């Protein structure tokens, strides 16, 4: 895929949806790499004791998945100069081979001629629930 350029991108363009699996192994690796060892992300006994359905994904793992979606589209992770989200629902990750799935799609919702950036609004769902709200990335384009 050729990387998008400022001139070829138009407001209203849709970025096709991509499905990303989230398994227990992903959460364990993310905990180790990020240093976020909150037990609700790896211990079912404690997660269910505090009222959660099971271990849940780190919100920052879901956010990183959206970031990966935008980086892949831009062709350069360093082009993502702003990125913000609201965490709107939990992503329970069952202890089985398939785990959970996060489906991400996007839309170009703005362009700035001065900074040559595009605004990408992301949508992320898991099991029918919206997991990221107000998910907006600003991407510098060549």
């Amino acid at each position: 895929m050729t990387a998008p350029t400022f001139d070829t991108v138009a407001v209203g363009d849709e970025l096709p949806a991509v499905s990303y699996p989230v398994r227990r192994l992903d959460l364990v690796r993310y905990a180790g790499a990020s240093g976020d060892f909150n037990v609700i992300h790896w211990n079912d006994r404690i997660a269910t004791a505090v009222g959660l359905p099971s271990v849940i994904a780190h919100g920052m793992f879901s956010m990183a998945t959206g970031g990966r979606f935008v980086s892949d589209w831009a062709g350069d992770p360093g082009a993502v100069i702003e990125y913000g989200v609201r965490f709107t629902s939990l992503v329970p990750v069952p202890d089985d081979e398939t785990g959970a799935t996060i489906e991400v799609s996007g839309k170009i919702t703005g362009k700035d001629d001065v900074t040559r950036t595009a605004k990408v609004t992301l949508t992320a769902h898991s099991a029918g629930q919206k997991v990221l709200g107000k998910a907006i990335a600003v991407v510098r384009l060549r």
Partner: protein
Amino acid sequence: MGVNPEISGRVYPPSPGYEVGREKIREFAEAINATGPADAVHRDPAAAQALGYPDVIAPPTLAVIIAQRSEAQLMLDPEAGIDFSRVVHGEQRFVHHRPIVAGDVLIATLHVDSVKTMGKNAMVTTRVEIADEKGEPVTTTTSTIVIRGAGEAA
């Protein structure tokens, strides 16, 4: 004890430098499954240099590692009155003034921008200004946490 509203506006002392290593960038990229063609800039210095970066660059959300270390000062501050077991991450935002590059030594300064109380819950918005050793801005992160009040279901 609830969250102390007087912490709003507080600025904590700058953190010790966090040295960003190539292998940390690679490890974090692999942990978020950023292993596609566009992600070569996280693992291959030559690929990063081809795009004009001095060395491998971090994924857009790696700065959270540095931010959360800095935010720990607030979580552990007895004057703040935050019960970490009741904290839920509400919002997160990154503004990158430039990408984080392997070899950077980053200094984080934590600002408490606002404290709001809504019923039994409190919302705290913090900002971590991440700069390089010369003091040049690298990344601004903003985080909002919700602290669920006592008596609320977990």
